[in-house]
Structure formats: C-alpha cells, structure tokens
C-alpha cells in the first residue's frame, strides 16, 4: 500500500481507492490514510463515507487525517449523513464529529433526539455543545438525565458539563449524592461548572452527604480549586 502511494498519476490512486473499499481493516486503513493525506475536499467527503461503513479500527486510524477536513465535513457531509436511516453510520459520523471538537451544523438535531435508538440519541447528546443550530436543549437533556438507559444518562451529564443548564441542578444534586460510579462523578463535574449554586451544592454534599458522595465532591472541588486544595506534598 505504501508503494502504491508513491506511484504518480491515476493508476496508483485508483488501486488505493479499490483497496480502501475492499480488503482487510489494516490495508483499508492504510489506503484511506494515504488518500486522505493528499485529498481534496471532494475526496475527503468520499473517504469519510467509506470510513463510516468500516470497523472502528479504520476510523481510529483515519480520524487524525480527516481532522484537517473537519470544517467541510461538519458543515455539509455530517448533517446529510445523520439524516440517513443507517443507525451505525449515524453513530459513527457523530462520534467522529465529537472527537474533532469542531463546530457542527445539525438542523435535524431534534429529530435525532427522538430517534428510536438510544445509541443515536446518546451520540447526538454528546455533540450538542458543538451544534451551532441547537435550540431548546433543556427538555431533551432533562429527559435523558431521567432515562433508564445508563448510556443516555451519561451522555446527558456530559452535555450538561458543557452547556451549564441551571434547571438541571436538582437532578444533578440527586445523582451526585445518591448514586455511585461514573455517573455520580460526571454529575459532580457538571455541578462544579454551575457557579455559584453548583459549588454550594457540592459543599453541602461534602459536609452532609454519604461518605462515597462526599469523597467525590471533595475530589471535584479540589480539581476546581487546584492547586491550592488538592495538592499537598506527600
């Protein structure tokens, strides 16, 4: 594959396009990477389309190269892709978009949030802070935070961390003081962004909450106020 990349003209490129679409994951990824390096916006769009249908490893190997084309892809290609019917492709497209931290245009975001698949809803929630067209996020986030699906709740908390929605405070306080694990840690982080009420809430959990919740609140407060609180020479 590397040698094909050195061939000038169309022959090498044609062979690379063929390999990019039908081979083993590593060969596909190598061909895609070589094509992405010298890709014009049109080829980048085509490569992005190919990558969405490939195994996760191919997307991991390509994410860095395609990042250079993120503005183009986020503006037109991804909105068109998420309007499709293939659930796996939608999730993969949103996952790539989220990893680039590039501004997105998703006018169909409310449609994604009512998608029957929780995986699509969670992926859409995760990219909410990047979406320039988003409006009326609150009801969807509140619904996600109260969902039975752990991945949706996690995505909701991740979104709240960035969006700082004041009305979620009682729910966040409940999750932070009552539950255990990753969700509680995320809730603490979201609370720490909601100054001053969130910080006050964390202080209350620290003083009055159950031991595990108090420890998490202390950790979050220490991270927020670092280095004065958290670091002390051993």
């Amino acid at each position, binding site marked *: 594959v*590397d040698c094909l990349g050195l061939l000038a003209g169309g022959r090498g490129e044609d062979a690379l396009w063929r390999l990019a679409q039908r081979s083993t*994951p*590593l060969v596909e990824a*190598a061909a895609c*990477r070589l094509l992405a390096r010298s890709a014009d916006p049109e080829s980048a769009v085509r490569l992005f389309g190919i990558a969405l249908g490939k*195994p996760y490893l191919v997307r991991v190997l390509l994410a*860095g190269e395609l990042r250079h084309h993120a503005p183009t892809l986020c503006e037109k290609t991804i909105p068109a892709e998420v309007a499709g019917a293939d659930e796996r492709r939608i999730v993969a497209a949103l996952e790539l978009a989220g990893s680039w931290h590039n501004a997105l245009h998703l006018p169909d975001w409310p449609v994604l949030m009512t998608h029957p698949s929780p995986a699509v809803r969670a992926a859409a929630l995760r990219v909410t802070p990047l979406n320039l067209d988003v409006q009326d996020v609150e009801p969807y986030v509140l619904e996600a935070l109260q969902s039975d699906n752990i991945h949706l709740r996690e995505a909701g908390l991740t979104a709240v961390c960035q969006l700082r929605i004041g009305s979620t405070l009682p729910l966040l306080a409940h999750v932070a003081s009552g539950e255990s694990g*990753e969700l509680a840690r995320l809730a603490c982080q979201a609370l720490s962004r909601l100054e001053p009420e969130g910080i006050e809430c964390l202080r209350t959990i620290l003083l009055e909450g159950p031991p595990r919740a108090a420890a998490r609140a202390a*950790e979050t407060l220490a991270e927020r106020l670092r280095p004065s609180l*958290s670091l002390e020479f051993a």
Partner: protein
Amino acid sequence: MTLQDIDIFVHRIYFFFESGIILYVFVINSIYLFLTILAFLSIRRHHTPFSLAEREAIMKSPLTPAISLIVPAYNEAMTVKESVGCMLKLDYPNYEVIVVNDGSKDATLQILIESFQLYKSARAPVGTLETKPIRRIYESSQPIRLVVVDKVNGGKADAINVGLNLATAPLVMVVDSDSIIDRAGLMQMAKPYLEDPDRVIAVGGTVRAVNDCSVARGRVTRIRTSRSILANFQSVEYLRAFYGGRIGFSLLNSMLIISGAFGLFKREAVLEVGGFEHSTVGEDMELIVRLHHHFCDLKQPYRVVYVADPVCWTEVPQTLKILHRQRKRWQRGTVESLSRHWVMMLNPRYGLVGMFAFPYFFLFEMLGPAVELLGYFLTVIGVLFRIIAPEVAILFFSVSIMFGILLSTSAVLLEEFTTLRYPSWRHSLSLFGTAILENLGFRQLLTWWRVQGLVEGLKGKRGGWGVMERRGFQTAPK
C-alpha cells in the same frame, strides 16, 4: 481360583490402566499438536503488529480509547522504580498508570513517592467493588498521569479491584509491578478491541522471561538467554504455553486464562461480573472463566482474545524453592477456578468453552500431572514385577519425551518465524537445546510439584501473594 488365574486377572487390570494412560498421553499430545498447528496457520494472518505509520496514526487519533493501567504491588522495592518508569513511557496517547501498594512491608511506597514526586490527592474511587480500606491516594504531576494508592493488605485481587474502582477509562490493563512492557505493548494489546469493540471483552498478551536481559531507561535493550538453566527452562515453557496453546484457544474463542501479569479488559465487563475474586489464588483464570460463564448465560456475543506480539517481560524464579511455591499456587488456582464453575463442564449452553476448553482444562491441565505421574509409577512397577516388557516401558517413556521435545521446539520455531526477538543464532540454538533438555527431568519435576498443588487445591488450602525473590533488572552498560 488358581494362582495362574489371579496372575492373568492382575495382568488384565494392569494392561487396562496402562492402555488408558497411553491413550491419555496420545490424546493430550495430539491436542497440543493440533493447537500448535492452529498457531502456525494463524500467527502470520492474525498477529501482525501495527506498522510505524499506523502507530503514528493511533498516537494522533482523537478516537483512540483511554486505558487505565493497573499495577498491583507488594514488596517490590527492588524493581518498582524501573518498571513504573517504563510504564510511563509507553507509546499510547491516552493512558494513566494506577499503582496499588497492597500494604507492602518494604520501601515500595517510599520509593514511589520519592522517585515520581508524588502529591497527596483528593481523587475518589468511582467503582463500588468491596475492598480493604484505602489509606491514602497520591498523584504525580508528570505529563502522564500516575496515581499511587496505598491500601491495607488484602491480596492481589483486592489490589486490582481498588485499581478498578479508581480507573475511569473504558479499558483497563493489569500488569505486574515487576514487569516491563514493550514500548508499543499497550497499543498492540488494544488492537483486537479496536477491531471489534462491541464484542472483545478481554485480551491477553505474551509473558516472557527477562532474566539476564539488559534493561536501560525502562526498556529491554538486549534480549538474550539467561545464564541460569532454570530460567531458560521457564523461557521455553512460557513460549510453549503462549505460542503453542493460547493462540489455538483464542482462535476457538475458548481461552480460559489470561495471565495476571499482562491482560487488557473492558472495564464495564469486569465490573459487571464483580471484579477479581479475593478468595482464590488463581484470580486471573477465575475471572476469565467467570466472564465466559456470565456472557454465555446472557447469550451476549463476546470474545476473549490472545495476541502474540505485545510482550511483557517478567523476572522468573531462579531458585527451585520459589519455583516450587509458584507452580503449586498456579495448580491450586486451576483447581479453584474450575471447581467454582463446574456447571460449565460438558454443558452445551457454554458452547466450545463448555464442550472443549473446560473438559480439556479439567482432564489435562488439572488432572494431567496426576495421570502422568501415575503413568510413570505404573510403568516402573510393571517393569520391576515383569508385568510389562522393558522395551515397552522404554518406548512409552521415549514417545512421551519425544512428543514433549516436538512441542517445545515447535514453540521455539514459532518464535523464530514470527517475533524473532533473539539477536543472534547462538541464543536461538541455546533455546533449542533447552527445549530438548527441559523434557529430561525438569518437566517431570514440574509434574510432581503440580500434583502437590492439585492435592492442596482439592484440600482447599488458601493463599495470598506469591513470594518472589527479586534480583532486580540487569542494567545495560552505558
């Protein structure tokens, strides 16, 4: 009944047992051979390491999943600085190292605090696995996140569970604190997960002996065979176990063990089954059997995979006393792991694991040493009492030893064909010599020790951390 009738009866009984044992030896060696052939066929296709360009792409990729490296440590003052230093220099873009000091009695904690400029941290556990209390958590201000947990002694499984509670990454890797991982080891271990993130729940790598290899700046810089014949025997044995057995079992998705010294797991899956089990000495094997048990029960598709390329270098015992203890512990671990999940035995609900791997481990790994020993005993008695001809006995011993030599040399050959770690033919030749020699006494000694372990396991003997006499890594000359 005449004396002659009794004699015929004894002969018949004797031949019945002896034939059974010969059949057993034939079956076990045929399975080994089958697994080795599978390994030969698959190693080039399924065990290709990442190229330099791919490694660079993964390093740059924002999609690369985070990994928490959990390093349980108990009385590791001799090697901990070098091995943790190595773990902080791995080629992976997104990882943290969590060292769990399980109430060491030596200076392990102090060395870590001083060597890595640790600070007291406010970090709190995320997971809810029940463990012994944590005394204090420390963190390093170095670019790669190093977390050191000081806790009350509770055993290796307990220490790993503390690490699991603190880990926040979707993948966790468990590595012994006396080990050195290849620079690209973390990336190679993550490869099966990246290829199939929905199904892969555990990945095992290769463990090899580091004795007498040169180590500099946290890397194994010169690989060579050891000056100790005991260490070399174990080198060959490890090659046989990893290249011969595990590749084949991995292909059949029925691997029942991932070495506790070097394994990568999906954190969610391990937490789902309740973490590592405290009450067994074979916590690594028990976890894998439990994962199979759990996911088969749920009828969820999953994979437990072995990859040959990433190597974890570890110091192997150089005294018979320590090796004896280690092997007894391993055998006890096998007994405990199998007996806890006995319901899987020959149960079609558990697929190939229940119908092939479990019976194989029970018949050949657990009972194997006892049957082998019984075979030797019956053959010697048979010759002494003239029940069997000396030629037959010699043939039996020769075939058994030749099979062993064939398997050991095949494993060395596999190493030569694929990873080729040894720098010159002299080392490879020495390894081939060892592969022959280890079948003439060493293997039989291990069999005897494993029988002792089997008896202890059946009696239900408990145990904690294994004791290991450390020599420290051999520093490369400047």
